[in-house]
């Protein structure tokens, strides 16, 4: 099952970030390919997204269900495709950043081909969704919170292995996009963008 995790930091304290993240209506429009969302009740909504599968752009509808609402730390949700056999979920986690002297986990090593594939899909992502958000993360010593977005999607049905191969490279750009859009929005709102 393709799964990715992306983390960014902000100068804002976790409580301020939570105030925004706690309400899905606030950040659903920041989802990659967002078209619209309809609230069904307090925990359920339907997202309509225009997503990329390979070189194609498809409009998909996903039923989102909030499974965990644990302020000011995290909100977790599941996703189930309405027209497509796909399911997954995500979790936005807010925490105080690791101490400045804590070792930074090295990114997993990727082979040349993997890096080329990821590079291609980042390019494709930018081409189909625009250049994305340009922001500078605050210096480590200035960061007051870190926002982590974990995203997983799994295509089911007999063709699942093939669709997952196409989906996998698109997930990390989508995770980066959401986390950075939330961060950029909050930084602008509170006037704390890194310079």
């Amino acid at each position, binding site marked *: 099952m393709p799964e990715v995790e992306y983390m960014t930091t902000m100068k804002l304290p976790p409580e301020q970030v939570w105030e925004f993240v706690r309400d899905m209506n606030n950040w659903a429009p920041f989802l990659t390919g967002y078209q619209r969302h309809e609230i069904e009740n307090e925990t359920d909504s339907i997202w309509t997204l225009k997503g990329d599968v*390979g070189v194609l*752009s498809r409009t998909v509808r996903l039923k989102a269900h909030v499974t965990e609402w644990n302020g000011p730390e995290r909100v977790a949700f599941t996703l189930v495709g309405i027209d497509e056999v796909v399911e997954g979920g995500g979790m936005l986690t807010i925490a105080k950043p690791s101490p400045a002297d804590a070792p930074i986990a090295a990114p997993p090593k990727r082979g040349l081909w993997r890096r080329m594939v990821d590079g291609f899909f980042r390019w494709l992502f930018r081409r189909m969704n625009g250049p994305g958000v340009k922001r500078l993360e605050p210096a480590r010593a200035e960061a007051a919170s870190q926002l982590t977005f974990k995203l997983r999607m799994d295509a089911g049905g007999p063709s699942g292995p093939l669709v997952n191969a196409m989906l996998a490279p698109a997930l990390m750009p989508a995770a980066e996009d959401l986390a950075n859009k939330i961060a950029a929005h909050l930084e602008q709102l509170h006037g704390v963008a890194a310079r």
Partner: protein
Amino acid sequence: MWGRKQKPQIETDVLVIGSGGAGLVAALAAHQAGAKVTLVEKAAKAGGTTAVSGGVLWIPNNHHMGKAGIADSRAEALQYVKRLADGRSDEKLIETFLDEAPQMLKFVEEVTPVRFQALPKYPDYHPEFAGAKPGGRSLDPGLFDTKQLGAWKDKLRRSPVFGMTAMSVSEATEWGVFSKPLKLPFKLLGQRFSEGLVCYGGALVGGLLKGLLDRGIEPLLQTAARDLVVEDGRVVGLKAVQNGKEILISAKRGVILASGGFEWSKTLTAQFLGGIVTHPNSPPGNDGDGLKMAMALGADLANMSEAWWCPSIDIPGEEYDGQQLHRGDFAIRSLPHSLIVNRRGNRFVNEAQNYNDLMKPFFHVDPVAYERPNLPAWVILDQQFVEHYALLTIVPGMPVPEWIPRAQTIGELAEKIGVDSKGLTATVERFNGFAKSGVDSEFGRGASLYDHFYGDLDQKPNPNLGTVEKAPFYALQVHPGAIGTKGGARVDSRARVLHVNGAPIAGLYAAGNVMAGITGPGYPGAGSTIGTAMTFGYIAGRDAAKS
């Protein structure tokens, strides 16, 4: 003409406009013959219409047929193509194609990594006609590893339909891509996708592009041809736009138009086509720019009322290059448990025949009512279909997308889609009788070997017929589409563009869909488009280099 103060930014011998099969082979042939070559492509990716196609070449009397144990001859092929051309093309050009195509095939295999394989089970599109063959003339380019292209791998155009999976045409045939979708090795296909393997048109263009790059020729992408430059009656270069700036390219020996058809131009299709191509299957850049440049120099035109017709089906919201994608339908209409009807609920065509000829009755005009009675048209399916066969992007066991209209009865479905309810109910009842007997006494569906290729060979007594009787029933609108247009600039047997006065326009060549097709209204077999395009590209490149 060049202005007094204008100096070309690029000086070359042979300039090729377009990076599809015709353009790439023209560039290879010109370079092989000793010319300095420049190739421009207006899109951000190389590959043109060829890259989104099946990548198959139709080459009669090719050297791979012998390996497959299939005999062929020039005379048989000529007899067959002449019948399909219906007297509407220059017979000399048909002969030129038949003579040169096998040589072109060998040339491509010599100078590129593409290796073809005959498809012994892929019949000509009218296999019962004299001179036709039950297989072997259509050639599969196999798979291509895009890693071979280095940095150019991201600049290779990918097909929105065929590019999603990496299976060769031979494999697709053996595996039953449409009729036995659950038997497809999806894990293997996922691995191949992740490894960067491509198939069909992507494989063909990938291999041709690799051959060109190996010669140090890099296509100039996002370079749009605007006007041909003429000096003393000879085409000597091009004005093009690159990154928003006009550039001049001089071409001492010739300019080869390989810029594709005009199916995306509303103006040109309205002016010239007998039918209405509302849903073309090609990349949206095919708007006839090359054709207009030739017309501006007085080029003679031919076959302008024809296209490589193909029925199209849309999945709402599915886009390619920023436009709604129109998927060519090759199998839904050919497999059992489906039929096509018009708004009166009547069948009007053998649904399983080749996609080019299938489309012709769609454009039929009732001269009394002055309307097209067969538009809009719908393909009607039942639950048996979705339980057995691939339907667009779903395979059996997956839910049918909500956007597809459905109903528990045929009458109710007809009302939902605006089709005459009584007419459709009666048609389905009659069709079910044909399905049970195995004989379609109205349109002969399943009588031809060609029909069987896209049918279900396990379906008895007829691979193309099955009842439509199990609810729910579904409907998909079938739109008039085309792989490309088939009319364009007339050429001679050296691929030189002819002026309306009959003489060649010095320095100007054409190949591919910008050139007047040599088969009139007919489509001899799978790969006729690309086979012809690459052959005349080969002729043009070689001739221009020597001029």
